[in-house]
């Protein structure tokens, strides 16, 4: 068992390529977020959804099959502009002319985004709209109102829980492995999270995709997955030190990555399969969530194969 195995695949031969790929990806992500920030209609690194901006979102389903008359978004917007809502004590009736209207399923269901309404006002809005566009199915109605304070609260608690879990994971890796390992695991994690954010910044710019609280959940998951993936390679390196003794770090890493490569690819594949299922068959509510997870997990296995192990010899030498 003292003979050093010769790996079929030497990751360190390709490390420049891996590094360049990651750097290009990160730069693109940062550019995407910067463009989002500069965009006058977004003004944030990612396009924030209802959960973060606050407001009321009303989802309606028309109670008609093929007999539904055609409906255009501008038609609905015009109708919204003339609707008058019962005022709430202490505040004026909200102005609905700037509302965002989205038609789904060929005009059969629609989503409205309006300023935050009290529940009586949203009820009145639905009733008055129903008079205009025909009967609605009450079972297909969803009304969400989120106060502006809740969004920032959600953001704060997500970021805090994310940072605390990073710190705890770093501590655990420092104790079971070493500080350099922990640093690289966190670097990979940041890489994966940044990459996913960047992809959604571009999606927000080009396709108007918004991030909601499920996106925050997806990022947290990507972070956890990234660490788990990286740790498997670390575990192999630690084990090799016992079985085949001390080798130069570069060789150590080559052997470990080669041995765990099949596992890493298979695991990413088996995790991606249910997600692809969600993408293809899941409801619209989970589509972008599954998308964020898929991107994050694909990038996560990239960084745990190509990034963390190849940076290890560079950092350990010092």
């Amino acid at each position, binding site marked *: 068992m003292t003979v050093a195995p010769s790996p079929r695949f030497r990751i360190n031969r390709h490390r420049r390529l891996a590094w360049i790929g990651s750097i290009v990806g990160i730069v693109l992500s940062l550019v995407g977020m910067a463009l989002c920030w500069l965009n006058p209609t977004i003004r944030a690194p990612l396009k924030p959804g209802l959960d973060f901006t606050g407001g009321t979102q009303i989802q309606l*389903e028309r109670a008609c099959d093929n007999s539904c008359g055609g409906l255009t978004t501008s038609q609905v917007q015009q109708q919204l502009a003339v609707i008058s809502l*019962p005022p709430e004590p*202490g505040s004026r*009736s909200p102005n609905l002319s700037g509302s965002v209207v989205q038609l789904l399923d060929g005009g059969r269901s629609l989503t409205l985004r309006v300023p935050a309404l009290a*529940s009586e006002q949203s*009820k*009145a809005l639905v009733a008055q709209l129903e008079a205009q566009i025909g009967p609605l199915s*009450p*079972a*297909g*109605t*969803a*009304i*969400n*109102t*989120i*106060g502006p*304070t*809740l969004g920032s*609260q*959600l953001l704060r*608690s*997500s970021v805090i*829980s994310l940072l605390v*879990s990073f710190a*705890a*994971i770093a501590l*655990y890796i420092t104790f079971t492995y070493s500080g350099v390992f922990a640093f690289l695991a966190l670097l990979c994690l940041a890489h994966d999270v940044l990459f996913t954010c960047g992809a959604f910044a571009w999606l927000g710019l080009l396709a108007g995709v918004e991030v909601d*609280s*499920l996106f*925050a*959940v997806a990022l*947290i*998951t990507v*972070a*956890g997955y990234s*660490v*788990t993936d990286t*740790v*498997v390679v*670390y*575990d192999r390196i630690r084990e090799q030190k016992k079985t085949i003794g001390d080798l130069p770090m570069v060789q150590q890493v080559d052997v470990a990555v080669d*041995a765990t490569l099949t*596992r890493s690819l*298979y*695991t990413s594949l*088996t*995790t991606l*399969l*249910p*997600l692809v*299922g*969600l993408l*293809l*068959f*899941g*409801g619209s*509510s*989970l589509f972008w969530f599954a998308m964020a*997870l898929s991107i994050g997990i694909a990038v996560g296995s990239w960084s745990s194969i190509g990034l963390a192990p190849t940076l290890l010899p560079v950092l350990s030498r010092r």
Partner: protein
Amino acid sequence: MARQQGWFALILALAIAAGALVASFGLQLGLDLRGGSQLTLQVLPAGAIRSVDHEQLEAVKEVLERRINGLGVAESTLQTVGNDQLVLQLPGEQDPTRAAKVLGSTALLEFRSQRPGTEREMANLLPLKRQAEAVLASRQPRPQPVNGQASPPSPKVDLSAEDLAKALRGLGLTVPAGSSEADQLKLLLDAVNQRIVALYGPTAIAGKDLVTAGRQQQATGNNWDVTLKFTPQGGDNFAALTQAIAGTGRVLGIVLDGRSISEATVGPEFKSAGITGGAATITGNFSADEAHDLEVQLRGGSLPLPVKVIEQRSIGPSLGAENIRTSLSAALAGLALVAVFMVVVYRLPGMVAVLALSLYALFNLAMYALIPVTLTLPGIAGFILSVGMAVDANVLIFERLKEELRSGNTLIRSIDTGFALAFSSIFDGHVTGLISCAALFFLGTGLVKGFAVTLAIGLLLSLFTALTCTRTLLRLLMTYPALRRPTYFLPARQLPSAVA
């Protein structure tokens, strides 16, 4: 051998117990899966209280619970979140308008008498208030007639634009540009109410002096009155209060949450003793629902601190059902593909893994029924992810097993070494996952919490199934010599020639 059978019996027993648990308890579905409404209430600090503490939050919750019971919504739950928030869930309820209104108001009831020397001002304000109220009421859409009874046509009242503008100017109000007539009327009414309340003396009787509240329909018309019954002390105070103003023409004001909801004069016949008997009626021209809501609020007592509805989500049952159906079929389709993959790549152990993973899914559902966990969309996502981790554990083990076989170990030895060597990486991966879950659970909000719970349960169970179920089943199968063939584990060309 005996040990394997012992483990196998245990796993079988657990599987049966899990099946029974799921069948008898069923799964609790969150509002996003079954439809319903959710309200988040923020408790606001007021007066001397700068920040809300746990005790005050509980006090608010107690009052709100009484009000919810008064409303009679089935299966509602009210939970405290963090230091200053409450979440109310109303399963099946599509229209949270009424609940939001009843829960959101403080319901601080005060009886106050008009101060002497303010009669002239009051004489100007009261007619204006009546007029504004009447015009506003006539502008409201009439409620749908019930049981075919047509509601009487609203009386024709009007306040011309000039008169309205004059009244607003008279009170020193500036009207924001572009506001509608209804907005202006509201503005006027708010201002008039403020002036009226300013003419009252200090609080003589408050909500705590009430024993109970009720409602009754007025003898004529469709309007309702709210009746009050005072404690003995409250009754004495009420008698004294009415005696003081009897026959003076000054009014007795009933003030709810700082708004004057009813003004009444007391006739000279009560000059000697005041109105005794410890009961009173608020004639506020309420509709049946308004009277009921006020009754519920007064019975429940006033809130020690004001609350504000900051989030309101309602989702129709068909949207919920659709969500669960599509998510379920998606998860199952993905898992079927994973099962095919495992059998193709790992052969016999792959089949064992599929069986073990099915048990794993069953155990998960049993834990959800047992704890109980309310399943939401993020919860399902957490479950799907934990399945990924559980599969990963099996992949790690089987890759090790293959490695051992390739290097020429015997089958039984390879299985044992495979499990032993894979353990540390499985353990580390699961522990880091659990660390994240702990952080998310203790620091995250509702959505994130649901995700953390199912992921954590999944990770703990995955440690158990990968290391126990898969192993026991594999060892048990190896007691049959017919199955002890390395080619059931690896393609023949990958085996070292010595063994093959």
